[in-house]
């Protein structure tokens, strides 16, 4: 009798859990006003922020101790260099003035720069289904769904992905290596257009498809791939990667390329969310 009651209780609990899950799926899929999703993301990302902060704190403390002795040596070196720099300061003033004049001559304006919001990665998704990055900027900071995300690494700018979910103080970014994210791209030198997507892992190359057969023989290994700006919110000209392999099959009516991303996702810490288009693009 007790066993039968227990079995019934289990079944009722299962039904309740399934109904709740289906309700969540329905709510999140039907409307963007899915406040339970936003609230949940905010709560979870709060704890992710704490865990990330603690991890960084301990990691940084250990690194700081190691660097202490190196800093002493560097300090001595810097003291010497400081004196040298004092001599070059006067030269710098002259160069700055020259630079200002050159910028003016080229009609360069800082207002043409893409408006962006710097953000820190507080969590990287682990797992095989959803490649995503959690950033510490959300709707409170003016971030909206669909905004492109870029990063600068080793002095090079590269596309990271697109904001897919936004909570009050955080957002989730779908990276370019996700198989579900398609980016309109252009080959920088040969100017052929195509569509780029990932294979689900940051260690695997990106796939560039639907490039006209005419490109055969004109595209070289190592050629840069940039955003085309066509049919999407990605501004044109953001570097993505370089061609590392060309695949051409006789039965295909388009070419396919493998692209190595310019940005290494494994050592990514800070990114920039592009919040507006350039004035140049708006004029177009």
């Amino acid at each position, binding site marked *: 009798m007790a066993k039968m009651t*227990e079995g019934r*209780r*289990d079944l009722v*609990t*299962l039904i309740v*859990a*399934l109904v*709740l*899950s*289906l*309700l*969540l*799926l*329905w*709510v*999140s*899929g039907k409307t963007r006003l*899915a406040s*339970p*999703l936003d609230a*949940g*993301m905010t*709560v*979870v*990302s709060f*704890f*992710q922020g704490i*865990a*990330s902060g*603690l*991890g960084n704190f301990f*990691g940084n403390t250990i690194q700081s101790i190691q660097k202490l002795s190196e800093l002493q040596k560097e300090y001595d070196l810097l003291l010497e260099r400081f004196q040298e720099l004092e001599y070059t300061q006067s030269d710098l003033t002259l160069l700055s003035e020259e630079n200002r004049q050159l910028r003016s001559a080229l009609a360069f304006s800082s207002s043409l720069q893409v408006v962006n919001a710097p953000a820190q990665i*507080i*969590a*990287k*998704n*682990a*797992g*095989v*289904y*959803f*490649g*995503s990055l*959690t950033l510490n900027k959300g709707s409170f900071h003016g971030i909206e769904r669909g905004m492109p995300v870029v990063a600068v690494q080793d002095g090079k700018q590269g596309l990271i992905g697109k904001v*897919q*979910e936004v909570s009050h103080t955080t957002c*989730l970014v*779908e990276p370019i290596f*996700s*198989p*579900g994210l398609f980016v309109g791209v252009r080959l920088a030198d040969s100017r052929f257009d195509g569509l780029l997507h990932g*294979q*689900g*892992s*940051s*260690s695997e190359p990106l796939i560039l498809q639907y490039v006209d057969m005419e490109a055969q023989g004109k595209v070289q290994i190592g050629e840069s791939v940039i955003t085309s700006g066509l049919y999407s919110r990605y501004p044109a000209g953001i570097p993505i990667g370089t061609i590392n392999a060309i695949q051409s099959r006789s039965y295909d009516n388009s070419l396919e390329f493998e692209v190595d991303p310019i940005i290494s*996702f*494994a050592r990514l810490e800070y990114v920039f969310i592009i919040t507006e288009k350039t004035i140049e693009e708006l004029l177009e």
Partner: protein
Amino acid sequence: MIPRLLVFTGFGTLFLILETTVLQYIAIDGIVPAFYFLVIIFVAFSYGSFEGIIVGFILGLVFDLSRLGLPGFHSLVFSLFAYLLGIFRGKIQFDLFIIPITVYTLSFLSKFLMTMIFAWIFGAETILIGLFSPLILLEFAYTLLFLVPIFFVFQLINKTFLVKRVYT
């Protein structure tokens, strides 16, 4: 029962949060061990369907909310999985190696099948692609490495703190 639920839900949630942050330092190709899944297996197998469903549902929800998932998808999969696994409670007892490894392997396969079916039903293409990626094998193997020590710790916690003692 409530302390057990709190303890293991807490463990699972902590693991899920650590997976996306601190545990990234031990990630191989972006993959970290799925400790949260071991929590669901242990609870469902040791305490039965009822507690398994509750823990599975909560951890599934945290899983979906901590990444770019479909909210409700994994709570659905884990609840159903825990219910089915809970049926075997009391029929087989955990030992140190063989049973945990066998249960984990079969559980992983069941989860794979259930995820595949539900991903197909709900049209979750990204999940389907992920399921057939070689990384899923990496996740299986990487989690397997930690299986024995984690289950040992869980059993120790269970025996030391969570099982009612009868004094004669």
